[in-house]
């Protein structure tokens, strides 16, 4: 392990509460964070450090659990425990709340924009995943295209495929579901079973051929789409678990991120540590192997909730924790 993760900056982002999530805007110039203090903060780079540019305080009545930037970078969506999802429009350094999406029965756990920018997915403790469409003419109008109840428990995370119109979700029911559109309605096409406890996070590899999941069972699983037996067109797709990383994490793995630039895999763990895994190049593509490249055992003083790679700068990594802090890291691979 001659690869390193060096701390660049650490700062308190959400005073006296948890920082739940951090997200880079598509250009990588801004970092959005959200937390238990019901606020969203937008951070911008000032020289070598990150400063708070905007504070969005009154959008939600309860914890803001996740935030997501639209692919164009002009909109920000926030998912909250108050059962609503807020869509914000960027106007210079400020953000204006465009619309509030209601419908979930209770806490919204995640929101994600499709790469096309026309679709949005949300998921909730009410076990459902909702797909919304933005009206082309009216940026304030979001219409619910589908409601899917494939999970039997709290849905923790949703993520879109980087290039296709495909959605994945994971849940407290230990499963991952993959959805595709069929006749104007979204349906669950595959259920990925294998984890033995809550699946907290999901991330696609840069090409979209593989999906990585992380779980309360302390493992990370890599899934690959494979041709179903019989090869019939239009039948359900099949995803197989092609790799399991176990024995690396001491506690629940809360988040996982696949670097779009380098292919490195970073994890956020309940043992307060941040880890980076590299893929072994010699392995068979249908049986990938990953090894632990770098590990920061006490990245934070409490659970690490989120980890995110910078979209433009290779090796730049950000994490956030239950102690309200955000940490910015530089990962360097010796090889």
């Amino acid at each position, binding site marked *: 392990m001659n690869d390193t993760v060096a701390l660049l900056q650490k700062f308190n982002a959400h005073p006296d509460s948890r920082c739940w999530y951090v997200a880079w805007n598509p250009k990588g110039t801004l970092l959005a964070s959200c937390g238990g203090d019901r606020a969203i903060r937008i951070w911008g780079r000032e020289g070598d450090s990150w400063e708070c540019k905007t504070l969005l305080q009154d959008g939600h009545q309860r914890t803001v659990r996740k935030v997501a930037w639209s692919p164009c970078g002009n909109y920000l969506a926030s998912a909250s425990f108050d059962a609503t999802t807020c869509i914000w429009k960027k106007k210079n350094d400020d953000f204006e709340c465009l619309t509030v999406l209601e*419908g979930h029965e209770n806490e919204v756990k995640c929101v994600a924009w499709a790469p096309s920018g026309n679709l949005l997915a949300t998921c909730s*403790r009410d076990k459902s995943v909702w797909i919304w469409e933005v009206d082309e003419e009216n940026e304030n109008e979001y*219409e619910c295209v589908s*409601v*899917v*109840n494939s999970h039997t428990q709290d849905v923790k995370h949703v993520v879109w495929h980087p290039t296709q119109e495909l959605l994945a979700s994971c849940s407290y029911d230990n499963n991952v579901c993959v959805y595709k559109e069929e006749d104007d309605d979204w349906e669950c096409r595959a259920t990925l079973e294998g984890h033995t406890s809550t699946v907290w996070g999901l991330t696609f590899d840069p090409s979209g051929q593989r999906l990585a999941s992380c779980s309360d069972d302390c493992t990370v699983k890599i899934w690959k789409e494979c041709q179903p037996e019989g090869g019939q067109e239009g039948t359900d797709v099949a995803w197989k678990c092609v790799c399991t990383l176990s024995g690396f994490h001491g506690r629940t793995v809360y988040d996982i991120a696949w670097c779009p630039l380098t292919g490195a895999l970073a994890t956020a763990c309940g043992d307060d540590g941040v880890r980076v895994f590299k893929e072994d190049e010699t392995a068979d593509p249908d049986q990938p192997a990953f090894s632990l490249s770098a590990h920061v055992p006490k990245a934070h003083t409490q659970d690490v909730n989120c980890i995110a790679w910078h979209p433009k700068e290779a090796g730049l990594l950000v994490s956030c924790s239950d102690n309200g802090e955000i940490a910015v890291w530089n990962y360097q691979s010796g090889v």
Partner: protein
Amino acid sequence: MAHKSEDLFDCILMADDRFHVEGYREGFGEGTRQGMIDGRKHGASHGAKLSMEVSFYYGFGITWKFLLQNNTDVKARKRLKVLESLLGLIQKFPHEEPQYEHLQEDMEKVRAKFRQVCSLLNVPTDFSDYVKSGGSGGISF
């Protein structure tokens, strides 16, 4: 004579066992009868709940369909399409078959479709009077 005295002792010796068996048979019979009664009540109550829910969605759907069917704008057309989809799902539902293997799945589809319809029609969905939500107001992660 010997035969008769054997019977006599038999009666006494096996009394315990005999009463045991008789008691068991009576109890089993009573339990079965009571079980049938309880089971029937249980089934009827669950059937009624499910039926109430499905009928509510159906009535809701038909009412809105009636209200929107003469409206020609694009949005109304879209909503009608989803309403038709909801009504279709309910009509396909086998009302007389309690052992229908896809009952749970189909019910979830109907419920999901109903929520989508409400969202499109801007009808707020606060069913706290009718539906018990599991532990709201607690800590969430």
